[in-house]
């Protein structure tokens, strides 16, 4: 099934093909290849608007996930029809991430992929608002990134390392 990728921002150059490849591999590692997922590369203005509208935090951020299904962490959705083969949408705050990477001296494209992995896990019910939930999410992120690393030779680590 499809990864629908859109680049809706002008601030940061984004290479679509490698990002798509990575997201497809991560989705496969989650066992969710038969589900569509939407991925929007967004600038600070859009992220701020969405963050304010949906989380009452009107400020730019790195990632926002909008799941199509409500599932418990670790479960795959059970679609009842063709139209429900959809994990939901991930908005990647690429402008925000790019600035963070510049400040921290990190590889932008690597962090973009790690952030996408984080967003995908959120679409599948993983959370990090408590320590146990974070541990579960961290393990899953590490697992799927390890799978991606095995395929691509990269050395990516989860986004939420050290959150608790």
């Amino acid at each position, binding site marked *: 099934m*499809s*990864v*629908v*990728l*859109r*680049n*809706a*921002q*002008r601030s940061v*150059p984004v*290479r*679509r*093909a490698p990002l*798509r*490849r990575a997201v497809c591999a991560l989705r496969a590692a989650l066992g969710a290849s038969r589900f569509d997922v939407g991925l*929007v590369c*967004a*600038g600070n*203005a*859009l992220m701020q*608007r969405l963050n304010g509208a949906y989380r009452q935090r009107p400020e730019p951020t790195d990632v926002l996930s909008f799941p199509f299904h409500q599932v418990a962490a670790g479960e795959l959705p059970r679609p009842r029809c063709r139209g429900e083969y959809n994990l939901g949408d991930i908005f990647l705050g690429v402008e925000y991430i790019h600035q963070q990477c510049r400040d921290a001296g990190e590889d932008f494209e690597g962090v973009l992929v790690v952030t996408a992995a984080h967003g995908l896990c959120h679409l599948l019910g993983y959370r990090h608002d408590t320590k146990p939930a974070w541990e579960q999410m961290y393990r899953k992120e590490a697992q799927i990134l390890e799978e991606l690393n095995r395929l691509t030779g990269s050395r990516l680590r989860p986004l939420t390392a050290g959150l608790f």
Partner: protein
Amino acid sequence: MVGQSEGPTLVVSVLRERVHRDKAFAQFLTDEIKEEKKIQKHKSLPKVSGGWELEVHGTEARLVRKIAGEKITVTFNINNSIPPSAEDDTQEGQKPDEQEPELTSTPNFVVEVIKDDTKQTLVLDCHYPEDEIGHEGEEESDIFTIREVSFQPTGESDWKDTNYTLNTDSLDWALYDHLMDFLADRGVDNTFADELIELSTALEHQEYIKFLEDLKSFVKCQ
């Protein structure tokens, strides 16, 4: 006979009416030109960053860039480049003292990539999505899309419609992303697309004012 004595008087009367209306029209155009020049955002055409050279022939503009064995040209025409919804917004339900919203020109543009060592030009027909540009806030779709791709013989002005044309409507999305990255690597990315809108809008306004001036001269001419 009835009408015979009225003939020349009627003609003169009609002519006088026409001259009167033409004068009013010319005066209207004078005022319109003055207003348009007042709101003109760019007195000269804005530059597009990235080393693009601009050539303008009437309503057609061409941006040219040379990089490492390749020549990239981007061609667009400002005729019919303002989406109908943008034009409608300025006419309906507008209070007299409200400032008219800016009209934005979003022309289709054609990217041609010529490599020095081939006889074929890769031609990509690109469009701006409708109803997405010019609205407040950032939208959630691509800034521009590739609609069609084909090869054409380099240096020939006639379009060869027996050459295969790839339509991206049902194209594999991974391939589509590669094409977008291909363009981005040659300077045709979202920033470029944005700057092209600025350039096209400025050119369109410039040509509109010139048209009004020509119209005014024509109307006044007897």
